[in-house]
């Protein structure tokens, strides 16, 4: 994720406005230009998310390229939903199609351009234009978020220990350009007394009272009042998926998966999540809206799912290790999502909370 410096107050000049970063178009970026006779590039999909698999059904034109990055090509489909064709490292997710693009290559160098047509044929997806890219999907594995974990969850007190371990790890190893600075303030882990948290950046300062308000409303079961707080958090902060959204995604995914595995009030959680996801609409990017609506159903990228699973079923060291990976790989975005996950655990483990499982 992008490391961003929060900015302070003071007069400044707007220097540049960039719409949909298109690295492919800038010649300086191209390292090895494909030969002009090269008509197409073929990728093999190794994994397809369940939602993605459903969305790409059909034959013929199914959508258009929305944006391109070195790690991913985002496609908007008829009806407005999205799928992302990604590199291996991005990982499996409900709307991801993971391919075997060699590590040194970039999705942005394949000759795909914004608005290129996306065609569905038997066993493959073709991203059109002068130089087409083919994605063969015949042998891809289906990725599905495991809602119900095969391993038995640990006891409530053991899970609390895991939560504290992950909170400590996130507080010390997280990236705090987004909302990470809120972790020691909102999630008790035993280090507050020994360490003074660093000063908050402007996004965190803004977000803190709104997050507190959101949490207390969920705790009290005041679902119809959640909207305002969500609207003041969705779309806030740095990142291609803004920090506030990452936090909300983590929160919803963990609430859903915890309710499912610890026999909580799944129906109430569903209503809470639906309210959050719908309040975020039109407040943020298309991709982020996509992630939010998936997270509302407990569907998430495999790295986050793994973390939630470990927090529920494994020993503290394993949960810690999983958190370390998420923080390292996801950087700011990962940290913000972990904040959300921790808050989801907190709300669920609180006996007095409307979404409590204890």
């Amino acid at each position, binding site marked *: 994720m992008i490391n961003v410096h929060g900015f302070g107050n003071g007069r400044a000049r707007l220097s540049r406005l960039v719409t949909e970063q298109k690295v492919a178009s800038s010649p300086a970026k191209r390292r090895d230009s494909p030969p002009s006779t090269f008509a197409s590039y073929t990728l093999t999909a190794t994994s397809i998310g369940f939602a993605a698999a459903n969305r790409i059904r059909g034959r013929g034109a199914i959508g258009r390229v929305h944006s391109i990055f070195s790690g991913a090509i985002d496609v908007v489909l008829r009806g407005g939903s999205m799928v992302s064709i990604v590199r291996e490292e991005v990982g499996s997710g409900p709307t991801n199609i993971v391919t075997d693009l060699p590590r040194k290559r970039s999705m942005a160098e394949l000759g795909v351009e914004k608005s290129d047509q996306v065609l569905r044929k038997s066993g493959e997806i073709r991203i059109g234009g002068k130089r087409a890219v083919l994605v063969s999907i015949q042998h891809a594995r289906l990725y599905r978020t495991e809602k119900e974990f095969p391993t038995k969850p640990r006891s409530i007190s053991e899970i609390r220990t895991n939560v504290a371990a992950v909170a400590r790890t996130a507080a010390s190893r997280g990236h705090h350009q987004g909302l990470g600075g809120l972790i020691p303030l909102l999630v008790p882990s035993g280090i507050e007394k020994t360490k003074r948290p660093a000063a908050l950046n402007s996004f965190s300062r803004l977000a803190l009272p709104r997050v507190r308000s959101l949490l207390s409303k969920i705790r009290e079961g005041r679902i119809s009042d959640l909207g305002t707080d969500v609207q003041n958090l969705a779309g806030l902060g740095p990142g291609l998926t803004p920090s506030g959204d990452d936090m909300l995604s983590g929160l919803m995914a963990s609430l859903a998966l915890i309710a499912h595995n610890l026999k909580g009030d799944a129906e109430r959680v569903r209503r809470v999540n639906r309210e959050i996801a719908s309040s975020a609409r039109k*407040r943020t990017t298309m991709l982020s809206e996509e992630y939010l609506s998936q997270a509302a159903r407990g569907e998430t990228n495999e790295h986050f799912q793994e973390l939630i699973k470990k927090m529920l079923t494994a020993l503290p060291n394993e949960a810690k290790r999983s958190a370390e990976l998420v923080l*390292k790989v996801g950087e700011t975005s990962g940290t913000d999502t972990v904040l959300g996950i921790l808050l989801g655990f907190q709300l669920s483990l609180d006996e007095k909370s409307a979404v409590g499982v204890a």
Partner: protein
Amino acid sequence: MKGVSQAAVLMATPLNKRVLTDAGFKGSEVEKAGPDDLIIAIEAANEEALESPVARVEEMLSSRESMKAEEIRPRSLASAVKVMSDANLALISIPGRFAKREAMNALESGLDVFLFSSNVPREDEVELKEAAKARGLLVMGPDCGTSIINGVVLGFGNVVRRGSVGIVSASGTGIQQVSTLLDGEGLGLSHAIGTGGNDLSEKVGGTTTMEGIRLLEEDEDTRVIVLISKPPGPKTSAKILNAASGSNKPVVVNFLGEGDAGASKQVRAVTLEDAARMASGFVNGKRTGAHPFSVSESRVRSLAQSESSEMSKTQRYIRGLYSGGTLCYESQVVLTPLIGEVFSNAPLKPESRIDDATVSRKNACIDMGSEEFVVGRPHPMIDYSLRKNRLLQEARDPETAVVLLDVVLGYGSNEDPAREIRHTIASAKKLAGAGRRYLSVVASIIGTREDPQDLQKQAKELASVGVVLMPSNAQAARFAALVASRGAVGRKLFGNER
């Protein structure tokens, strides 16, 4: 960066636009931008100073969720082999029904295989081992918990000295017990080759065992070979014994529970402890006789006496709670001649199978690493919670005299078993005390000084809550029998010694 006072890269969502506006970044471009537009806001002293931060931001933006190189994980064996072209071993612990495919891929790529997975269909195992044999490769497993190759522990295992004893074993904990005992005497291992629990079944026929014996015969570092397994069927047994007697090196055959069948020329060990003793005899060039205990008879008797002196008349039985099948089996081998029938979920004979493994009856040894306990949970060598609960359950039973435990250290095991279990042991003893009983807890620690868990600390902490520690699992079982019988089995144990 030179000349830049601040920079921000944000998606132009309603909230972010408000934040930008408040910070002084205004203009129609900001207003027109939609949520899917990206704003790079840089405050700089002049135009020139803008160039490098803008380039830098473009560079950063071009990767989405890019993973650091060392964390990139291949998704298949095939791509892993591409990344690590000189790989020579695949360590496979995926669910059994998928294991054959991956193990076969590994063999076809020229890798030896350590197959930890269990519940692999027998036919798959046969196929894999035939394919391995054809390629001159080794399949250690399925259901293989331990191997130690060139001093490297694969799976569960202890940090043991390098030396000249080689082991081929169908039991992982068997390797652990024998190797730690050898290490305790200053001896060491050349290699320990795990064969998996079913290698010596009639269907599989001992392919890996035979190959393991052959490899150790060729290995210059190995001077003695130890074979460990539960007694195999007659056909396989004959095959192995034949190989052993024809070997160029001394072979200690430990078919657990089976002593010398008379006509055989091999050296036969009944218990794991015997196997270690005999192996060391070969290494040191002198045979030592078997003793029931490492310490003197009088010391053992007085220890046993003090354990049983506070027991009530109702307390008669031994309850063994084991993290693995082999030590559970070995205990039964030791106990049965001393105290009679022992019930178990991994019994010596079918008639002694316990009806419900969750409730002990009479003298019982329970393998708490068996399927019924382990499904959906971490293994009992790592997670002590089930054994802790069971300990308390046994403490409440007025018929329980002694609880027997194995505490296994090394890679793969719990980081601090003593800490895990000592409070429960103290509570268990208190529980018994409240019922005017004394609960004796006897254990053996399987570990070495080099293990990650600090052997001495483990011993100290367990002793501090009243656990009687014996140097081996076999001795722990003997001691338990001595305590539970109020010394009566002493005649059988020490009879020959007088």
